[in-house]
């Protein structure tokens, strides 16, 4: 019974989203469905937060390997929740200056804003910066000329790399105008605009059809694995 209700909700929500771009009168319905989803996701966050707390508390009480990380996680969770819900350091909104909590929790100057700007942002930036090294190691592995395809990939990557830097201009800038298409910077543009775009579009068309096919399978209830049904 519960699975039938879930399928019905999926059908109604999916059909609403499907027709909304085509029927002007249905545009508002799509927004309503999106709002329902957001409300559901917000409610589900309680489950997620509960799961996080449970797992970390269990690890902390068991004093297993890495229990110190669990303590840091729980402390960070509690502090952020407290400054966010308690609106610590929030300045009153000009429209209601008599109400000290009328400002938003992430307004400039609030404790929540401070944590985000001076703790969260540097940490995420650091992790993002590490990507440069991962790209280098992945490229080193991918560009080994083991066979014809890998050699072509290596050569193409070399042209793009040189064409996107001043080295390309220095190396092939001497080519006359009638052969300007062979200059590395122009070759790089041609590879990206023609070969890369063509390949990308082919993949995107396949993806679009795959999404349509998946959508039909879900709407018709053929694929119920996301509900715990048959795969």
């Amino acid at each position, binding site marked *: 019974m519960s699975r039938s209700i879930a399928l019905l909700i999926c059908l109604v929500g999916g059909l609403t989203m499907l027709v909304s771009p085509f029927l002007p009168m249905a545009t508002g319905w799509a927004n309503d469905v999106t709002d329902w989803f957001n409300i559901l*996701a917000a409610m589900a966050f309680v489950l997620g937060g509960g799961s996080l707390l449970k797992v970390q508390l269990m690890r902390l009480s068991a004093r297993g390997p890495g229990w110190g990380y669990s303590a840091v996680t729980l402390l960070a969770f509690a502090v952020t929740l407290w400054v966010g819900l308690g609106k610590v350091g929030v300045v009153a909104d000009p429209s209601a200056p008599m109400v000290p909590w009328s400002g938003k929790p992430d307004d400039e100057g609030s404790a929540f804003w401070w944590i985000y700007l001076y703790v969260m942002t540097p940490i995420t930036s650091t992790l993002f910066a590490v990507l440069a090294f991962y790209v280098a190691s992945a490229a080193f592995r991918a560009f080994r000329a083991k066979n014809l395809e890998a050699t072509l990939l290596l050569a193409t990557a070399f042209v793009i790399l040189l064409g996107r830097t001043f080295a390309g201009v220095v190396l092939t800038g001497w080519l006359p105008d009638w052969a300007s298409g062979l200059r590395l910077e122009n070759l790089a543009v041609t590879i990206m605009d023609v070969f890369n775009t063509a390949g990308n579009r082919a993949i995107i068309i396949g993806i679009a059809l795959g999404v349509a096919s998946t959508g039909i399978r879900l709407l018709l209830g053929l694929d119920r694995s*996301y509900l715990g049904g048959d795969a």
Partner: protein
Amino acid sequence: MVLGADASFLNPDKVLLLVVLAATCVCIVGSMLAARAGSVPRIRRIAGLEAVEEAVGRATEMGRPILFVPGIQDMDNPMTVAGITVLSRVAGTAAQYDATLDVPVSRSLVMQAARESVQAAALQAGQPDWYDPERIRYITDEQFGYAAYAAGAMARDKPAACFYMGCFFAESLILAENGNAIGAIQIAGTAETAQLPFFVASCDYTLIGEEFFAASAYLSGAPDQLGTLRGQDIAKALIALALAGGVVMATIEVFSPATAAESPVEVAP
């Protein structure tokens, strides 16, 4: 009743899109009905999906866990739904082999869906006690916070098999390179074209775009689901024909005398 711009019933800017969508739906549903009637298409072997059992078996033999990452988007993303479908298959195989399956998620709704799916897979495999909800846990919605956890979990637990199935962004390479560093067998699937090269470079198998969405039908083996894949191919052939026709017509237009007269080639002084 005439449907048109004046009636304001149908968005006039989207009529062509509606026609294309309707044609695609007709192809897919028609093929599905044909498959149900007995005309089941033969699907080519998808190496990435065939390797699922090999990866789970390897983890079982080595006595190490399996890590499944269902992307960082919520259940409103079709890639996440496709990822949960593959998870159900991986969980079924892991339950049969009694292997440990870890599923860290970055969205609460995905956690619930993944739990339902894994529990059902364990039941179908005849191993209801194998299911442990604490193994499917919420980490954080924050992209790099989640990536940091997954990378840390790989370094600590050294999973023998890593699956990345869903929607990924910049964290894709962090996950795949860490998995590569610990020597895990890695199978990825996504429709994010910008992340595909990273997965191809770092993973053993990658489901590219439509292969990822075909996984559900491929793994189920159900005739009507397989039929939808044939419908997809028919729609793709029609799109290819339309593209070829468009290229020919555009080329003819460029070289036609009328176009040449309208926009003569400017001669530099």
